[in-house]
């Protein structure tokens, strides 16, 4: 653990957080997180939100009428291109 990493302020750490999270690596052992409950709580919250959001959007069925509308529009387009 480098002294430079250990001595990050919360502001400096949070400025790096998008890149750290975006790297896809496990950052739970980051030196700043090991000593900072505030930023650890922030990270836990962000992970919880992302996971909760994934559960929030179900795969849903479109209304049955939608196909009839699409089919009708396709027929209109084909008729227009044939004429």
């Amino acid at each position, binding site marked *: 653990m480098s002294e430079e990493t250990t001595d990050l302020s919360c502001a400096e750490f949070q400025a790096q957080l998008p890149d750290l999270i975006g790297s896809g690596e496990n950052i739970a052992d980051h030196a700043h997180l090991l000593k900072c409950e505030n930023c650890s709580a922030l990270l836990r919250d962000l992970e919880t939100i992302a996971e909760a959001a994934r559960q929030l959007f179900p795969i849903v069925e*479109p209304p049955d009428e939608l196909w009839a509308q699409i089919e009708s529009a396709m027929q209109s387009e084909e008729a227009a291109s044939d004429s």
Partner: protein
Amino acid sequence: MTHTEPTTQISESGSSQNLEAGETRHARPRYVPQDTSANQVQAEILARAQAGDHQAFAELYTLHKRRIYSLCLSMVGSIAEAEDLTQEAFLQFHRKIATFRGESALSTWLHRLAINVVLMHLRKKGLQVTSLDEAMEPAPDQRPGRSFGAPDLALSGAIDRLALQRAIDDLPAGYRLIFVLHDIEGYEHNEIATLLDCSIGNSKSQLHKARLKLRDALRRHPTQEGRR
């Protein structure tokens, strides 16, 4: 042209292949391999649709309608708009089907086509194309706050679904877009950067701000249980 249900039930590629309506996406939907026999059946249907067989196109619609409609709904949050966008996506699919050469999975191609339809729609509504980095940056009063100084309150227990849904609905369009593409649809930042014509750094930054904003909203509005 009449629509009858396909006699062979196969699924679009991706982990959503086993999802029925109402089930949730758990993660990274697009890269799960599809079984070979299903691929072959879908390839045959596609070939017939490309040759102008309307029944085959109806079968492709049946296979892909849930994923495309759900994608549109998650990106715009409005049922009426999601229906219009799903219709437009399938109309474009119909117009362009002969140009599909199979370099990628059909579901991936159609998914991207639908995202582009939604992006065009959002841009018409005011999300600028030319400088997305700036255009997606909300006004200062909409930005999430940083989290330092006094100890943060960790979100207590389970997140209230309604509160989270409301918070996502209230996100500025640019934040919502990247949040949905990354956290819901499973796109990587480099893919989002290509789709939205912005930098990878901007995609990471916008996603982070979106999550912070959701956290702010959830902390401002306690769970339903907490209000009682």
